[in-house]
């Protein structure tokens, strides 16, 4: 039978793949993509929780779904801003690799 635990495990999997993407990837854009994956994992968790617990407990008026909507909007805004910054830094340093961004060390 399909239960909440399945969806949670799926979101954890997606979350850790996204996490790996953020830590391992060199190019900034790929890091942004990986963060998108993590946010989607969060959305899955929210909607699964809302769907399975509807009516029971304190779950009232579809909070989970609305949370997801807000998260999607903010994720979109964030991608826009991040890519603007990436373009700006590309124009200055003609590279997008994160390990070249170490002008500020000791």
């Amino acid at each position: 039978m399909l239960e909440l635990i399945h969806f949670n495990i799926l979101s954890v999997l997606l979350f850790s793949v996204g996490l790996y993407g953020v830590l391992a990837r060199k190019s900034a854009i790929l890091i942004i993509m990986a963060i998108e994956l993590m946010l989607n994992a969060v959305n899955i968790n929210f909607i699964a929780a809302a769907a399975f617990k509807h009516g029971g407990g304190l779950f009232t008026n579809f909070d989970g779904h609305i949370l997801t909507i807000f998260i999607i909007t903010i994720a979109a805004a964030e991608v826009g801003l991040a890519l603007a910054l990436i373009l700006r830094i590309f124009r200055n340093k003609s590279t997008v690799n994160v390990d070249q961004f170490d002008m500020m060390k000791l």
Partner: protein
Amino acid sequence: MNMHLVIFSVISAVLISCALGVVISRNIVHSALFLLFALISVAGIYLVLLTEFLAIVQLLIYGGAIVIVILFALMLTRNEEYPRIQNNKLWPIAGILSVLVLITLSVSYFQSDVIRNASTTISPAGVKSLGSSLFTTWAIPFELASLVLLVALIGAIVIARSDKGGN
């Protein structure tokens, strides 16, 4: 009833493989496409959870807008080793860390009895009730979200605009 289970497992398998594709593939364009397919399969998951409206929203915004913008960004930031991308030299540690996170979280899920005896019926969420609560109980966050979008918009323009001068 196991029909739901089968569909869910197929879609989640597609989702996880596309996610891994995003993260592992050597070619940057491939990873972008993998991202598109992953997001679409997430929309599928929403359908399994009987929230059609959100699936559509997911498809439209993520599939339509965000991936396209990322592709634009990829196109604009081509440099000499355009298609090839490597991982940074610390990728094994990254792998270990993410596996550890995976283990801790999943252990917590399996341990938690609240999750285990959650109800097994999926209750659908109609668009009408979604809309009404969005504009009544959640009005304040809604206004704020609009401001956030405004700031992102202005910020992106200010940063990306290539005007002359300045040191």
